[in-house]
Each structure stands twice: as C-alpha cells, then as structure tokens.
C-alpha cells in the first residue's frame, strides 16, 4: 500500500501547491512604472489571476476629491452609463451613454469573466444614445436632452464643419449639424464600417479629426486579451485607423496598440496621442498601460511583444520579424490603471499648474490585489513631450480598498475651460474648475 500512500501524499501536496500558486508575486509600488523607462518584472502566469473588484456604492451626495486650488461639481447625474464627453464649439456638452455589446461565451472562463465584468460596472442599462447639456454663462448646466438616439455602443465623437461624426462600435456615422441644434433626427449615413461583433472584446472606438479636417482617426482595440479568440478575429484591430473623410477609405495609421483610446492631437506640435490599455494576466505589474504619441506606420508590439522587444510567450505563431520592428511607447502610466480617456489641457480657467499638459482618466484595475488607477491624473508636457510625474487631480472614486463610488472614463475641456469627466459607475458627469470660479 506504499504506492497508494504516496499517491495520497502527492494529491494533498498538489492541492496545497495550487492554493499557494494562486497568490503570485506581490504588487510593487506603481511609481516604479511611471515614465519613459518603466521597471518591467519577470512574467508570472497564474493558475488563477487575482481578482479584486471593489463593491459599487452610490455617491449619495458625496463628490470626488480634487487637488488644492480646484473645485468639483456634478454637471449631470442619474445618467445611463456615461462613458465619453465631447464639447461643441457653442459650448454644448455631449455625453455618450453607452455600453458594450453582449459578449459571446466561447469557453468556460468567459462565464466567470462576464460575472466579474458585471460586478465592476453599473447595473444601469446603457442608453446607447448621445445626450446634450446646454451650459449657462455661470457654469450652470441645463437638464440633459436627447441629441441622437438609437446608436450602437457609441463612444467617439467629433465635429468637422457641419458634419458630426459618431464612432459606434461597428461603424463611423456622419450626421448633419447646425450650430445651436439640440437634437438630430436625421438617420445619418455610414462613412465606414469598423471591426465590431460578434466577439467585439474591446468595443470603445475613440475618434478625432486632423486639424485640416480631411482625415478622421479611430482607435480600434484588440478583440482579445492576447489572441485567445484567434488571429482571424484581430483583422485590422489593435490599431489606429486613418479614415478619409470624403470617401470613407481607411488605412492602418499605427498598429500593435492593444486598446487605444483618448485619441487627441497635441495642440502645440499637432502630433497624435493616445492612451493604451496593455495586456493582462502576466502578473500584477505587467504590462504597464501607457500614453504615447502615435507615429505614422509604427508598430507598438501587440500581440507579439510589449515595450519594444519583450516577447509574450502566449502568442503562437510568433513573429520575430514584427517584434524586431516594435517600438516602445513614450510614457508608462503603471500597470492595470486602465486609461480610457485623455484630453490636453487647453483651458485658461484652470490654475497655471494645469495648463499645457494632459489629463488622463484611469478607469481602474480589476486583476491586481492592490488596486491601481480609479482617478484622474495630470501629466505636465514640455515641447510636446511629458515632463515630470503625474499628479493626482481627481480622486475619491474609491473608498478604502473595497468600495467604489465611480470610475472615470472619457474626458473633455469645456467652453468655460473646465475639465469634464464621464463617470460610468457613478452615472455622473463631473466638472472641475479653479476654486471660486464658475
């Protein structure tokens, strides 16, 4: 019976090993992963990745906390999943109430993942529409009205002349717009299809336009964490599309960007920038999310490698030829902060310390035992490049370590020079201004 006892012992010690293996490495200080040269630890592949999703608790009259010299107020609350904000030239604020399409279940893990996603997001059914909020001269806002209804997971918005463009998850649509108009009933026309369902893993399509108005730029996220839905599902994804505004023809402007959002032209150098969500399940400190200038024709690594030539062993077949071309991004924001919004600070209303750089909305981590993100930070820029460390501008979305009031997503500067923040868990749009100013 010795063999049997041995078997029993083996089973017992294996179970024990399983339990200890779930922990993985301890998270490091996120500050080591901020800036142009982040510290990159060794890869750790889990048996079960840590899941830490704080419980949603309504704001209930509370507000986020702002840095000294600033004030914050709710521009609109009780919304249905506000995820992005855009400001029209006349000062009207547009809010996309949106959510992702229903995710298919291709393997048992996705049951679990869908349950966790539900925990992390508001239970409010997304509006799938764009609301308009008219701003008064004193910073007071009117009640939201419906600007465009019946959209399909809208996210990106941009106005060029009298053409208003919406990036639904599966198409860029164009609507006629006249200054002052408060609702559009015209059905619009499709400028181009975008990669959408049936899988549509990263569904938010960010949108901006070149300064001469001839081209649109759309962020098209990958269709998986790391190719687990197969390479055919990644066709023309993980890239920034350049779309001709008259013909709708497109080319891939830059590739290897896992989930690019917050597309914006830097106002002094007119270079395109984006914030990018990097891959999960390689450890609490891999891979740092980042902001980067998006260079024409550049390849940023996904899925084959990260931060240049750091190879991801989960991708097969590997492509050494592409890895050799991969360039590192400009500025790491630390791991799993989930930056989903970015705006360059153009407002004269904010204190001088918040001018010329970029605000980044960090939606916050779910797969890291010590939470990271859940705030809006400001990164100063000099000569079109980040200079100095990010400063916390808006915090207080988290209460302690296990409760969350809200999660910041899309950002915009409004006509009065205030910073707008879409909070898709608190179902609120927040407005940050200099203390004492409207």
């Amino acid at each position: 019976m010795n063999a049997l006892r041995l078997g029993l012992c083996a089973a017992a010690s294996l179970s024990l090993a399983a339990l200890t293996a779930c922990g993985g490495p301890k998270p490091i200080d996120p500050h080591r992963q901020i800036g142009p040269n982040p510290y990159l630890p060794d890869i750790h592949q889990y048996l079960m990745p840590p899941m830490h999703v704080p419980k949603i608790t309504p704001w209930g009259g509370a507000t986020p906390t702002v840095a000294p010299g600033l004030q914050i107020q709710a521009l609109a609350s009780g919304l249905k999943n506000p995820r992005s904000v855009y400001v029209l030239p006349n000062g009207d604020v547009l809010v996309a109430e949106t959510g992702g399409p229903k995710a298919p279940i291709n393997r048992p893990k996705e049951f679990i993942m869908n349950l966790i996603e539900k925990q992390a997001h508001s239970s409010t059914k997304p509006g799938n529409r764009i609301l308009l909020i008219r701003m008064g001269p004193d910073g007071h806002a009117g009640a939201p009205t419906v600007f465009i209804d019946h959209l399909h997971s809208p996210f990106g918005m941009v106005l060029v002349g009298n053409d208003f463009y919406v990036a639904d998850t599966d198409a860029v649509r164009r609507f006629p717009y006249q200054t002052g108009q408060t609702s559009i009933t015209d059905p619009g026309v499709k400028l181009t299809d975008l990669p959408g369902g049936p899988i549509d893993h990263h569904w938010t399509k960010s949108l901006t336009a070149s300064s001469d108005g001839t081209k649109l730029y759309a962020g098209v996220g990958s269709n998986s964490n790391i190719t687990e839905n197969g390479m055919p599902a990644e066709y023309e994804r993980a890239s920034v599309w350049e779309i001709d505004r008259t013909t709708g023809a497109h080319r891939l402007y830059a590739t290897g960007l896992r989930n690019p959002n917050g597309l914006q032209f830097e106002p002094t150098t007119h270079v395109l920038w984006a914030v990018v969500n990097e891959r999960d399940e390689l450890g609490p400190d891999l891979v740092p999310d980042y902001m980067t200038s998006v260079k024409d024709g550049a390849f940023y690594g996904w899925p084959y490698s990260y931060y240049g030539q750091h190879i991801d062993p989960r991708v097969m077949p590997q492509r050494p030829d592409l890895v050799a071309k991969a360039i590192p991004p400009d500025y790491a924001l630390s791991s799993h902060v989930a930056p989903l919004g970015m705006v360059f600070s153009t407002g004269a209303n904010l204190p001088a310390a918040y001018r010329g750089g970029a605000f980044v909305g960090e939606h916050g981590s779910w797969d890291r035992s010590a939470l990271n993100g859940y705030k809006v930070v400001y990164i100063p820029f000099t000569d079109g490049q980040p200079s100095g460390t990010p400063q916390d501008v808006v915090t207080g979305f988290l209460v302690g370590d296990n409760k969350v009031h809200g999660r910041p997503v899309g950002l915009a500067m409004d006509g009065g020079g205030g910073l707008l923040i879409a909070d898709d868990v608190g179902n609120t749009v927040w407005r940050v201004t200099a203390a004492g100013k409207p």
Partner: protein
Amino acid sequence: MPNDTPRSTARIGGHPIHPMLVPIPIACFVGTLVTDLVYWKTAAIMWADMSAWLLTVGLVASIFVGLAGLIDFLGDRRVRALRPAWIHGLGNALVVVLSIFNAFVHSRDAYTSVVPTGLILSTIVVLILLVTGWNGWAMVYRHGVGVRAEDRS
C-alpha cells in the same frame, strides 16, 4: 453460494450507477488529450477552447461519478477489501485533482493555456486512467462487484 459478490450500494433498479456514468469523464479527459495535441500542432484556438470545455464537462461529471463510486466503496466491506478498489479510487482521485489544475491552466489565454503544462497534465491523466480503468474492470469482471450472484453461478 448466496451473496458472495460484493454489492454496489449506489444503484437504480438494481443497476450500479458508477459504471453507467464513468464513461463520461473518461471520454472527456481522453478527448482533452486529443484536442490538446491537435492545438499543439496547429495553434488553431478552436482546439484549445474544445479542451477547456471537455475538461469542465469531465470535472462536473466526476462529481457524480466520484460520489457513486465512494458510496459503493463505503457501502460494502468486501469492496474495501479489494486491492484494485483502492488503486482505482485513489488513482481516480488523483485524476480529478490533476484535472482541476489542468482546468486552471487551460483558463489562461492562448498558447500557454495548453503548451507545455496543459498538454503534460492531460497526458499524465490519461496514463493514470489506463491503470485505474484496468483495476476498475478487475473489480467487476474478476471480483464481481455489483454483479448479482445468481447471474454469476
């Protein structure tokens, strides 16, 4: 020679439940090895997905198979007296533990959900199943566990 065969306790209408259900996890775990091998050779993600489903179904079925087997094991002292019963039971417990591990490995994303750890675990599981299967058959066909005495004589 009445009542000389060890009895099956978990049975429906005189039919032992354990042998009715046991083909399900066996087929699933053998199938996992096959789809793992195909994924290893093709890197076509469909096969890795198939492995994950087979493992899950195999493990869920194992709950019922294991319970029925355990009831039979505990239900008759004559079953516990058989050496093949111990090899069969403990070996299959190891199969379940390894397959739980394997399901976690298969929950990783893309290639390393299978190669190499998943593939190795699937192979070990099938090798153990050969031993436990052989001993399971010995319990029935040599020692008559769950077989009615009058049918044997």
